[in-house]
């Protein structure tokens, strides 16, 4: 009996590595601390009422933001561990299996649990405010999406201390990811963590598509809509077409592993290339899903901080739409070397290069907007400007990779690693950081400290080039990706050391940003106007942070950059101020169902991971019951009375 328990525990809990024991202890301590603080300050009820059951898009956005920053930290620690190992390859800081696990979790977390939620944070915080809406189309579904993401991410992260992490790469190519090569539960954690959060992402795509199509304030024609909302629209369309493919791909891989099917196995007629095709049919659009909103952010910021209308609005919209369509026709460039034949490779090489054209259009439009503008270089603008050269180099190396015959040389080398980090960090991370700095006052009512922010900015930027430029060279010197060690005679060590130093500089940049946030909570400049940057779009026309109902009166939109027009009209004295008539505001009620339902998904996922059918069944029944319960709920909304709206507005310093 005792032996059995010991046996079980030694496979259930990950053992044998001091790093992991360290993590165990710190996780346990954090949990105890959280429970203690919540109990001591009697905050359980508050947590439940204000956050766990909320359907307010602004709060959901903030929760996405917090979760994504935590994941950025976890993914970042993974990255630093890998870089340490590569700087001193003969020290054996990480063993080979551990190294494999870390590059797998790093990639997965960064794309799916850092970039995606950070993007959804901005969707949630900005889109309804920008289009003059009081809510998203489906507030309840929005909460479901968030909790599915969070529980999926938790399931994935749990693999670090329970059962063991996946280690067959962030896209889990078979046969490595098949039972024959990955018999442990790590790969199941990968499948179910992503699957559960992926369903949430798909729902978010639908939600924001309908929100943008149907909830715009009267008068806001599509072609008068701010560019960030346009970028969200194009990203959502891409999500809607790409994510079902991911769902199927992961399900098939799981069926292979769980029921012994032969979709992707080397035996039984399976076809591993089928997996590679499927995963990239999702994977390539996915990189555009995350980068398109960054393009939208830059468009907003460039216009605001140059005090000019964006140059070439229509071409910006058109370029984004073209990119989201083209992104579906380039996936084979990820495996030119797998022998699809010259004509197939040629097709995909050309379609890949074609994406550079609309991207180039956008870059020129940003530059033209800045040209002769009265530019003020605040943090959002700083990141935007840094993005441009970074993305140019990233795009150029992308086109180099897209030359199919040349790709035989670069494929799976450090050159590739440098390329995609350049576009992902330079494009996506810089973009979202710019967006966070830009909309931070809108979220929390205060600005982030400029001085500490500049430290963060320069450390990130210098660190970035120090880290990744040597990697292009290492690629040419023959260093391939996913190595955990190499000989000194290869001559790679000096450049790797430089690269590691760069990575730590970026880490230091992150530390400054955390410090910046903590410092600004106390000392940050308060935003009493609601319009700290002299913005152009509707979100700046309401107080910061926005009241529950966003707009006391739904605006009547006259043109693009509507708020700017209003401000100008007021200056010129041509504003027509009409009498407002407030009406009760229709709002959705909070609900605990999204949280409970996602928790049931978590239970089911955990059961599937370990092959404990009873647990999976219990979880799935829970999911079904919560959905059933929701279906029987009819009393799901309420009205905020006019008096209360008046009182709230008055307390925010607005006269009605």
């Amino acid at each position, binding site marked *: 009996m005792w032996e059995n328990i010991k046996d079980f525990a030694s496979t259930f809990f990950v053992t044998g590595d001091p790093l992991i024991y360290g993590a165990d202890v710190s996780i346990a301590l954090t949990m105890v601390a959280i429970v203690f603080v919540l109990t001591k300050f009697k905050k359980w009820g508050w947590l439940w009422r204000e956050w766990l059951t909320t359907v307010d898009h602004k709060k959901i956005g903030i929760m996405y933001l917090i979760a994504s920053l935590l994941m950025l930290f976890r993914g970042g620690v993974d990255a630093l561990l890998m870089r340490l190992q590569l700087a001193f390859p003969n020290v054996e800081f990480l063993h080979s299996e551990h190294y494999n696990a870390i590059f797998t979790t790093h990639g997965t977390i960064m794309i799916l649990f850092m970039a995606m939620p950070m993007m959804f944070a901005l969707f949630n915080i900005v889109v309804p405010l920008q289009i003059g809406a*009081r809510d998203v*189309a*489906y507030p309840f*579904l929005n909460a479901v999406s968030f909790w599915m993401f969070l529980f999926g991410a938790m399931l994935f992260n749990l693999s670090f201390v329970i059962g063991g992490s996946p280690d067959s790469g962030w896209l889990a190519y078979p046969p490595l990811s098949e039972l024959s090569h990955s018999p442990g539960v790590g790969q199941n954690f990968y499948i179910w963590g992503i699957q559960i959060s992926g369903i949430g992402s*798909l729902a978010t795509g*639908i939600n924001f*598509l*309908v929100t943008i*199509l*149907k909830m715009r*304030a*009267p008068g806001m024609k599509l072609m008068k809509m701010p560019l960030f909302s346009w970028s969200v629209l194009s990203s959502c369309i891409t999500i*809607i*077409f790409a*994510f*079902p*493919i991911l*769902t*199927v*791909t992961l*399900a*098939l891989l799981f*069926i*292979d592993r769980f*029921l*012994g*099917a*032969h*979709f992707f*196995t080397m035996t*039984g*007629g*399976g*076809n591993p290339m*089928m997996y590679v095709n*499927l995963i990239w049919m999702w994977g390539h659009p996915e990189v555009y899903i995350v980068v398109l909103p960054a393009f939208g952010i830059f468009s907003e910021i460039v216009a605001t901080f140059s005090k000019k209308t964006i140059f070439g609005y229509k071409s910006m919209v058109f370029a984004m739409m073209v990119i989201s369509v083209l992104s579906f026709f380039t996936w084979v460039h990820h495996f030119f070397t797998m022998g699809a034949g010259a004509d197939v490779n040629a097709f995909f090489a050309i379609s890949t290069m074609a994406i550079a054209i609309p991207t180039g259009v956008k870059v020129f439009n940003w530059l033209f907007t800045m040209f002769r503008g009265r530019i003020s270089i605040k943090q959002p603008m700083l990141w935007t400007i840094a993005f441009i050269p970074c993305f140019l180099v990233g795009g150029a190396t992308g086109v180099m990779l897209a030359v199919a015959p040349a790709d035989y040389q670069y494929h799976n080398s450090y050159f590739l690693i440098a390329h995609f980090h350049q576009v992902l960090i330079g494009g996506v991370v810089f973009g979202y950081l710019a967006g966070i700095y830009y909309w931070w006052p809108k979220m929390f009512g205060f600005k982030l400290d400029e001085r500490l922010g500049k430290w963060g900015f320069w450390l990130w930027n210098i660190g970035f080039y120090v880290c990744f430029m040597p990697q292009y060279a290492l690629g040419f010197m023959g260093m391939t990706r996913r190595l955990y060690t190499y000989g000194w005679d290869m001559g790679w060590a000096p450049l790797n050391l430089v690269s590691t130093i760069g990575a730590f500089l970026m880490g230091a940049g992150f530390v400054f940003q955390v410090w910046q946030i903590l410092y600004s909570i106390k000392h940050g400049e308060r935003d*009493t*106007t*609601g319009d700290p940057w002299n913005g152009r779009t509707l979100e700046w*026309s309401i107080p910061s942070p926005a009241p529950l109902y966003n707009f*006391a*009166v*739904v*605006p*009547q939109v006259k043109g693009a950059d509507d708020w700017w027009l209003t401000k100008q009209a007021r200056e010129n004295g041509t504003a027509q*101020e*009409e009498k*407002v*008539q407030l*009406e*009760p505001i229709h709002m959705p009620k909070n609900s605990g169902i999204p949280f409970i339902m996602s928790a049931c998904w978590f239970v089911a996922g955990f059961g599937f991971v370990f092959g404990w059918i009873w647990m999976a069944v219990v979880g799935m029944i829970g999911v*079904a019951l919560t959905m*059933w319960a929701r*279906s*029987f709920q*009819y009393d799901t909304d309420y009205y905020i009375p006019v008096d209360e709206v008046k009182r709230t507005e008055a307390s925010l*310093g*607005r*006269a*009605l």
Partner: protein
Amino acid sequence: MQQVMTHHEHGHDHEHDHGHEDHENLKVLGFWIFLVTDCILFATLFATYVVLMHNVAGGPTAKELFEMPGVIAETFILLTSSFTSGLATLAMHKGKTKQLIGWLVVTALLGLSFVGLEINEFVNMVKEGATISTSAFLSAFYTLVGTHGLHVSVGLFWMLALMIQLGRRGITPVTRRKVTNLSLYWHFLDVVWIFLLTVVYLLGVM
């Protein structure tokens, strides 16, 4: 600091609350988009099936396995159920709650017998030694057809919940929207089945 709100003309545009009707229409639109994603899900499964359908790995082939009479019966039953779900919607538009529930019951029974027949088909195949792990062809077959069957089963579960709600509340904007979505879903499954019949069964026995 005091600020003046922008005062807008008080247009009676869509944002004003004209009851729940607007919200319900929004949910129908969302459901259409959900069906688009479901289409892609099935398209991906179909593509997988087409790629793998000849990889029988020494196991039984489609020709040896498929029993067309059963499949024809399934087809007939599902098509009829789509028709009866249409009749249910018609009854709803006429405001006849009893009739509506009645047709939903018929639809559900037909759906149930479809699922029953399909399970029976699967059981027979497994008895003949054709399991999901026999070959890539069979993996793809069970997954594709099974996913459709699972969709039908979920639809039945949903239909049950809806019948109870209709019984309690009658036809309201909310139940109306739910019936609309359900019948959209049911027709959609019908269309998917036609593709299944053609690509899997007819191509298989030809």
